[in-house]
Structures are given as structure tokens and as C-alpha cells.
């Protein structure tokens, strides 16, 4: 198979600026994931190539990268499922500082996650057994609870590209997960946090996040529900 993998490289100890290096992988097959390709290059051709990875089947969220201009999990995308002619371009997730090659600094992403208070708040003493919740109410949370914090959505958003303080879709998804949880009592507190200049109103329903999400979460739908709730609160 003739395909060239064009990978963005940057080692802060050596390089002034990022550059691209091209690799050919003779043994590659269309049923390989992009992570398989990266592993093959690292293990057989270039040990200095650096990227994050762990579970290798789309659950841990470590290997979010940009593949042919789209944010994807390298392990969850097979070569046969992408459009390419001769070259597949692999770059780090955009809008975050690069530590090395495909590894980005996620500190700001995690800070924005922590700021929305991502934990159940309920000041009443819990009952002896479980808090009751209908399966319908529980299932309403499942989509948002699927989020693996891979940062593919947030870094795909043009609103983040122009404003680094923008909270971003992953944080809103987490807000949804608690605001719509019948067991949570801090909806107002959380809604206040996102009802700000760097908050939810900077979402312009561009749908990049939905396209980027490897777990196929309809993030924009969740954000719309939050916006609706915020508007309803004002009138």
C-alpha cells in the first residue's frame, strides 16, 4: 500500500519551530488504526516520535490528534474509514501548547473542567439506600456521561481558537451531566458559571464538536438544552 504519513514534529530541546516529517509504512493495511500506524513508525523506524496512548480502543481518551484536519482518536479511526489520496497528515490537537510532537499541554483543558464543579452536589443527608431515579432520567445523562475527556471537541471549536478563555464544549457537557441529574441541587450555581462572557454564549452552534467527538455524542444538542434552561431562568 502506498501511503505517506505526514506527521508534525517538534522537540523543544532541538527545534525552533514545528515541522513535518514524512514516513512510509510498507506493511500498513487498511484495517489498521492510526494508532497502529504511529506505533509501527515509533517501534520500527523512529523511536523519537512522541504521542500519548493507552487503552487503544477508544475508552481512555489519550490519543486525540488531528488527522487530515479533523480531531480524532488515533486508536478509534481505521485507515479504511478516512478519505485520503496519498498522504495522511497527523498533527497535535490545535489551540493548546505543544509539549513535543503530538503531545499537547492539557492543563487549561482540565482547569476548565474543574471550574464547573464536576461532582454531584446534594446537601441533604443521603437516604440509607440509593436515591431513586427513573431509568428515563438516568438515561438522559448517559450521553453526556460517556465523555472521555479526550479534548477533541473543545480544541475543534473556533470559539476557542479566538478566545483561549472560552470554557468549551467538554465543560458544558459536564455541566449538563449534573444540571439534568435529578439528584443534583446545584443547577443554578453551575448555570451561573457558564452564563458569562467566556461561557456558553460563545457557542455559535458550529457543530465542529459534534463532528469531532469520538464517542458520537451530540454535544450541540446538550449545549442547546443548557441555553434553553438559561433563557427560561431569565424570564
Amino acid at each position, binding site marked *: 500500500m502506498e501511503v505517506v504519513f505526514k506527521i508534525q514534529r517538534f522537540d523543544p530541546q532541538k527545534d525552533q519551530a514545528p515541522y513535518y516529517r514524512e514516513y512510509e509504512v510498507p506493511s500498513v493495511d487498511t484495517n489498521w488504526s492510526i494508532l497502529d500506524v504511529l506505533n509501527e513508525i515509533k517501534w520500527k523506524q523512529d523511536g523519537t516520535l512522541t504521542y500519548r496512548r493507552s487503552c487503544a480502543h477508544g475508552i481512555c481518551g489519550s490519543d486525540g490528534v488531528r488527522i487530515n484536519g479533523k480531531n480524532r482518536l488515533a486508536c478509534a479511526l481505521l485507515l479504511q474509514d478516512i478519505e485520503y489520496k496519498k498522504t495522511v497528515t497527523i498533527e497535535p490537537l490545535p489551540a493548546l501548547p505543544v509539549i513535543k510532537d503530538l503531545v499537547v499541554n492539557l492543563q487549561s483543558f482540565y482547569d476548565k473542567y474543574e471550574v464547573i464543579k464536576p461532582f454531584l452536589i446534594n446537601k441533604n443527608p443521603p437516604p440509607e439506600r440509593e436515591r431513586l431515579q427513573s431509568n428515563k432520567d438516568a438515561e438522559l445523562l448517559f450521553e453526556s456521561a*460517556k465523555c472521555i*475527556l479526550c479534548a477533541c471537541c473543545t480544541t475543534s471549536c473556533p470559539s476557542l481558537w479566538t478566545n483561549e478563555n472560552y470554557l468549551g464544549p467538554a465543560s458544558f457537557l459536564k455541566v449538563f451531566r449534573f444540571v439534568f441529574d435529578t439528584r443534583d441541587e446545584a443547577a443554578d450555581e453551575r448555570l451561573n458559571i457558564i452564563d458569562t462572557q467566556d461561557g456558553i454564549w460563545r457557542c455559535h452552534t458550529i457543530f465542529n464538536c459534534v463532528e469531532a467527538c469520538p464517542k458520537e455524542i451530540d454535544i450541540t444538542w446538550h449545549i442547546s438544552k443548557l441555553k434553553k434552561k438559561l433563557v427560561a431562568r431569565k424570564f
Partner: protein
Amino acid sequence: MVHKYDIVIVGAGGAGLRAAIETPPGATCAVITKVFPSRSHTGTAQGGVCAALANEEEDSWEWHMFDTVKGGDYLGDQDAIEIMCQDAIRAIIELEHMGLPFSRTHDGKIAQRRFGGHTRDFGKAPVKRACYSADRTGHVMLQTLFENCIRNRVNFFPEYLVTDIIIDKKGICCGVVVYDIATGEIHTFHARAVMFATGGYGRAYRITSNAMISTGDGFDIMYERGIPLEDMEFVQFHPTGLWKLGILVSEAARGEGGILLNNRGERFMERYAPTVKDLAPRDMISRAIMTEIREGRGFQGTDGTYYINLDVSHLGKKIIDEKLPEITGFARTYLGIEPTREPIPVQPTTHYAMGGIPTDIDGHVLIDAKGNIMPGLYSAGECACVSVHGANRLGTNSLLDIVVFGRRGGKAITEYLKTAEFVPLPKNVEEKSRDHISTILCNVGKESVVTLRTELQETMMENVGIFRTKAGIKKALKKIEEIKSRYKHTTIEDKGKTFNTDLVEAIELKHLIGTSEAIAVSALNREESRGAHACEDFPKRDDKKWLKHTFLTLKDGKTRITYKPVTITRFQPQERKY
């Protein structure tokens, strides 16, 4: 750089996070993890976590206890199993109160499903005991525990790799040495109490459900420092890994009614376990699958490898989409299979370590088979061996183990901190780690990490797998010895300090080699077949000689085995039939 914390926890999976939540007010706690906490391997657990809540049908913790004892082929310590199964109910309710989004019953309680080896009335029929959240139970558990750590302002050190533990002259554990992956600096963490919750070693085998981070770090670091490892011969092979890839296809698929079929279309588990059939324990089903394949009743793929079919198509699209979305998604993505219409090709996959760092019921690490402990050192989760899983773990008991014993370890640390002071750090604590790292960086030999790792994984798969022979295990040990000496001549390409994953993989390979040696030595020694250890030279369980725990210790380069008796309280060993 030296950091000082009252508690240092290594590993941010379920056990480490649950222990961190126990940090008492006024004490400081650092959690060191080689990946971000939300990326720990706990997140890949799928089907459920069990407790006899009796939300769906009659159940009792005594039945759960019996199933766990029997599932473990009577090697588990029954006092510990009793604690776990009794405490399970409180532990699950606690997770619900912490916010875990469980699937629910029609009356709003936590939903429960069937799972392998879990029965009602001491083995009469399968019971709905596994509490679940679709097929993402581990993921939401990891998220929930991480969320609660954020609430409690736990200090995380993500992408820090532990390289050593620090033990002073009196034998008190007082810290760890770590390698900061992002900067390449070595740090010392000085602590009053240290907990190892470092997970498993699945990557010692070629086919595994385990993440690439499951490289046996904790086992090997302890082993090297002369701490015993218990029951390492018991390696769980999950019967249903996705063919060729080993990705886990949860037992929930069979809990919901999926069945295993051979190339004659037979539901072959009816022959091996007439009562519970496809819901027999994992060791039995893995052996049954291998037997079917050996006797010519498997399917052969285009690449010459074999598989068995897991059929869920008869469950209907609604059940599949609601209850098994994740695993059916894997089949679609990676094998191009549509599970609502076609069977899923599966093969056994290396899954879980029953053995590990020996602990008592409160997470104290034992330094010998007599039960003496090392002050200041704790362990919980997959890397630890309490032992609740005996010779074979039941599905859903691992997620339970981590929250029950993570918490107990955390509580024991709290107690210990009441009187324990910081003991002074010994001199040159970083030396061993620095030497190892600089050796790897400076080596100019011909060996590569990937070649050695692949050879190791092949030999473990081939010779220390589901069925073992003494000759095969000896072959593996010889190969491990060879790999160990070749490891000294490994060269890596990346010599830099920033995010050097080439170096990290080389360090992890060392841990895989040490852990594999411990598995193989323990396996060679046990001359019987029990649970996951099926030795063809000794096909029967031998309670007279082998109803005991293996304690393997490395001293001055030599391995030594001693034994600890099994604690038997309520259930006398019986023949294991399902």
C-alpha cells in the same frame, strides 16, 4: 526535588482514587499516576459491579460470598471475601450517593444483570447481581471517583512514572522515587504512608484486553525490593476478547442472553457447564473455548488463527443499543461486524492478575507468609492480593474489590497517621532510579525494546497461557532469562529529556520482564490445576498438597517460595461444578 506529603498514592485507577478520598482532614495526599487519572485502566471495565442489593430478584451476600469462594476454586481467603461481599452493598450505595449514574429498574433503583459465576441459593441458577451503567460501568466509576477527588482537592501528579519505593534501615516505607515524564526530572516523594495501586500486567502477553500502560510496574518494583508476590501463577484469561485484537467484549453480552457457538453451530457451553452454561466462570469458559478449537470445532480466520462465535443477534436491536452499545461499537469499528445481524468472533484474552502484592484485609503489605507487615506501605486494587479472588476472579468482583479495599486501605492509613511520624529519608534514595535511566539512555547495544517485548509476549502467551505444561513453563523461563540478559544491551533512539516515551517504554519493559519471571516461577512450582492455573501434567486440583498461597520472594538474585495457609471459614472445598 523532594516533595513532602503525609500520604502518597501511586496509581489513579479506582483503588487509588477511592483511597485518596479517605484522606483525613489536615493531612496532605499526593496521587502519582503515569497517565491522567481519567485515563486509568479502570475506565475500560464494562459490564458491572456486583452487590447483593436484591433490586431485581432475591439475593444475599452469603450467596455472593459462596460464589466468590467457589469461583476462586477455594483459594480465596474467606475472611476477606466475607468482608468484601458484605460491604459490597454499602459500597455500591455509596457510589450512587457520590453521583455514579447507574442504569435503573422500573421502580428507580439501581438496575442489576446476570454475570458469570454469580448464582442464587449456592449455585442453583444465575442471579441478577451486577449493578451497571449500560456497558460503561468502569468508565462512569472512574469518572465519579475522579470527580470526588476534585471535590476533595486531592493533589494529582499526572504523567509521573514511579521508579522505586523508599524503605529505611528499620524496614519502614517512607516514600517513592518518580520520573517526571514531561521534563525528564527525577523527584523524591517523602511520605508517612505510601499506597501502591498500580494495576495489572496484561501487556506481558501478546493478546490482552489491557491498556498499554498495564505493564506490571508495581509488582516488579516490589519484587526487586524483596517484597513477596503472592499467587502470581493465577492469570485470568477472559473468554471473550475481540478476535486478534483482544479488546474486551464484556460478560454482560452473555448476561443479557448472548451465547457462544462453535463451527457446528453448537452452544458448546451446555456440555461444560450444564446448569449455568454461558455464564460459567471465566477460567472454565476460556478452557472450553481452547478445547473446542483444539478438537477442530473452532473457526479459522484468513490469517490462520482461530476463534469462536459470540452471538447476540437474537437479543434484538433495542436491547443491544441500550445495554451493550460500547462493545457492539467495537465489533463494528474494528472488525466491520454488525452484531445485530452477525455473530462476533472472539478468543480468550489476557485480562486480570489474581495474584500480586500480598496484603491483609486493611491493605497493609505483608513482608512474609507469616503475615508480618511493612510499616507505612499499603496496596490495593489489581496489583494487590488480599486474596479475595483466589485462583480465578468472578466478573464484576474487580470493580468491587477496588472500592472496598481502596477505602479500607485509606482508612488504615488514616489510623496509621495518628501515630506515625515522617521517618528521615535514607541517603541516595534516587541512585538506583538514576542509574537505571542513565544506563538506558547511554546504552549502545543492538537490542530494541519492541523486539524484546514482542518475544516476551509471545513466550508468555505460548507457554504460560490458558493450558500450561511444566516443559512449556521451563521453556518460557529460559527465554525470560535470555531476554533479561539481552535487555542490558537495549538501545533507545530518543535521548531527550522532554516527554521521552521511548525511555518510558524501556523502563516498562523491565517491569514486564520481572513480572513475567514471577508468574512463570510461581506457575512452574504449583503442581496441580486450580482455577486459572491449568497444568496439563497435573490435571486435578490437589487440596492435600496445594490448598495454600504461593509467596515468591527475590533475595540476592535468587527466588524463594514459601506458603501461607488459606483462610477457610464457612465453605469447605468441594468439587467445582457449574
